[in-house]
């Protein structure tokens, strides 16, 4: 797992929160992060957020460093966000798009990564369809590894940007009631949100058809409901997950229409909600299915704020893991 090393180098360069030292060379998930570490990323991100509003949108934190986006799944927005974040830190960015070895018998993931690393890479940002792929890489390469989504496991930077957005708008996390609605079973966004929000003291209600909400999620400290109307009045935040159409083949729910009727956030359903409800969505939105346009574009929506905040959060993550790597490697 991630290295935890305390050195003066890290303390000097990343000590935005007083006394706290970030020691992780990799960011593989949020499950292992301590509350203080989560807050430290958020605080670091807050510091970087202003960079996006300057006329010169660059800081030299990663100048001369190389970040590779190693994407084995399509994801234009996450890749773009990582690219821009790295560029704002003045890093050189390479994009590598491949096919998952689980479906394509060819070069193994480890070989691919080692080849790319041999070109002189400081940070690998990995998106992969297989849960645990970043953990495998972290064991096999010397550079930092940042998980940009691994199968149904975690999407830590998404979890962090959701957390950042919630904290920015609600001014707190502890005590908030957050509903996560949709295909919880196969959602890495849900898992990262659950791990992070629980650590910071939010109440979490997972909402979806019973076939897509594993009972074992209760052991992660979440509540479970299959009735969005019953849950909505209590919510400070709802995080609407995207409907995955491929789940229809596994017969997890009968039709998109029935799903939308039960679990879509429509304008009329919104009347049940508090006036200050915050609506999040990791994107891309299936408009009219899990989310009405009136809601997605309405006053409750924090969706574009999420995208903007994603840059600051990813800048913070790239910066912190690299500082920790320098400390670990003794440079």
């Amino acid at each position, binding site marked *: *797992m991630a290295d935890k090393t305390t050195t003066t180098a890290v303390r000097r360069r990343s000590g935005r929160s007083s006394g706290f030292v970030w020691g992780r060379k990799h960011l593989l998930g949020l*499950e292992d992060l301590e509350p203080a570490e989560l807050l430290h990323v958020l605080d670091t991100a807050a510091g970087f957020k202003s960079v996006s509003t300057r006329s010169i949108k660059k800081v030299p934190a990663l100048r001369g460093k190389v970040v590779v986006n190693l994407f084995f799944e399509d994801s234009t927005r996450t890749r773009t966000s990582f690219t821009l974040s790295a560029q704002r830190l003045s890093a050189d960015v390479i994009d590598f798009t491949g096919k*998952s*070895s*689980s479906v394509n018998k060819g070069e*193994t*993931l*480890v070989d691919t990564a080692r080849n790319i690393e041999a070109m002189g890479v400081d940070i690998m940002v990995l998106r*992969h369809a*297989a*849960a*645990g*792929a970043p*953990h*495998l890489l972290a064991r*096999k390469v010397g550079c930092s590894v940042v998980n940009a989504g*691994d*199968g*149904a*496991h*975690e999407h830590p930077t998404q979890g962090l940007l959701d957390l950042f957005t919630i904290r920015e708008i609600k001014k707190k996390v502890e005590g908030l009631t957050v509903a996560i609605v949709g295909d919880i*079973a*196969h959602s*890495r966004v849900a*898992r990262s949100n659950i791990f992070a929000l629980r650590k910071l003291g939010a109440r979490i209600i997972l909402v979806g058809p019973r076939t897509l909400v*594993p009972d*074992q*999620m209760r*052991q*992660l400290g979440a509540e479970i409901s299959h009735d969005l109307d019953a849950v909505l009045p209590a919510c400070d935040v709802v995080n609407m997950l995207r409907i995955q159409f491929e789940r229809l083949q596994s017969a997890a729910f009968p039709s998109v229409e029935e799903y939308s009727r039960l679990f879509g956030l429509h304008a009329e359903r919104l009347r049940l909600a508090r006036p200050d409800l915050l609506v999040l969505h990791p994107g891309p939105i299936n408009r009219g299915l899990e989310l009405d346009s009136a809601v997605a574009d309405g006053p409750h929506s924090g969706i574009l704020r999420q995208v903007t905040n994603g840059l600051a959060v990813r800048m913070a993550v790239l910066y912190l893991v690299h500082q920790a790597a320098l400390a670990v490697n003794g440079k």
Partner: protein
Amino acid sequence: MADILIQNGQVVDTVAGKLRKADVRIRDKEIVEVKAGLAPADGEQVIAATGLLVSPGLVDIHVHLREPGGEEKETILSGGQAALAGGFTDVACMPNTTPPLDTETAIESVYRQALRAKAARVWPVGAITKGRAGAELAEFAQMVRGGAVGFSDDGVGVASSSVMAKALRYLEPFGKVLIQHCEEPTLGGGCMHSGYHSTRLGLPGLPALAEEIMIARDIELVRSIGGRYHVAHISTKRGVELVRQARAEGLAVTTEVCPHHLLLTDEAISDYDTNFKMSPPLRSQDHVAALIAGVRDGTVDCLVTDHAPHRAEEKEIEFVAAPMGIIGLECAVGLFAKALVEPGHLSWPKMLRMMTDAPRDVIGRPRVAVAPGNSADLTLIDPEADYTVDITGWKSKSRNCPYHGWKLPARAVATILEGKVKWEL
């Protein structure tokens, strides 16, 4: 041919469940005397066995030797040597090779290769269906003539109830056992036990239910049709209960358990280490407790390794994509002692019964008690070895094993087959 005198060992009586101090004299291939105070004769090789158990040769009826088609992982030679180095005089190999062992010729080729290897005895298990595809029955009678000791599509279960019914019915007159890998495929297909940890890790699950449903179905088939039926590598609580009930009814149902299902849980997978990926998967503690209870009350008959070699590079990939299985022949005695003897669940003779008589009964081979007139197939075990597992020097061609560095209480120290010391520590 050297004659051998094994002196001062504790001879294991698996039937009476006792140890007794005695010397064992071997002439040529046979045990000729078992009694205390034997004096070495001229020219006799003396093995000092003070503090050692002298057991009937161990048998593992569930191993994968990968030959033909997977010789880079294991061969009948390397696997046979690994077996000897684990104290096994005999192994039964599963037919999921490439091509599968589904013809008389294929079965005979295993015997031929074992003859060349001159390592452990190898008893081939034939496939239930042609190509292990689950559709058409393989040529049972001809494979029996070729020497198949049982039949299994191991790696997958026979999904079709109709095919399984026909297999039981057709095979029943031949008296051979059907060994089922119990996994209902439409409920299975994942890569780890369905539960808290699979949910946490976002990995697709292999629910206990997939095993339990197939065991339940097969027991109903056996009740209706007859035949001898053996549940391979049982791993679930409800599965043990179903077998226990079937046995109480007098059905010819037996089962076996692997060391990893007794010693490890799905919690071990936290870092996506593929050396903890096998089928059936590591399950939760309640299943482990039920398996141990099943061993204690005799519901579980045999101890097996499910020795499943894979190359390091095959295992060093994404968890969902990595092949199932781990190797275990060379430390099996220590693992079972750690799981069963050390905590006081079984005495040594009772445990060794599950590695000698019981598996021989399942594959229809005669028992080989440590008694005059029997073939000198013996395993010497140090019950207080207290050693650390080091996989680097193993005979197996593969290293996919989570036990490197484990401290184990016991180990095999010599393996004697037909009067020859085939391996010693």
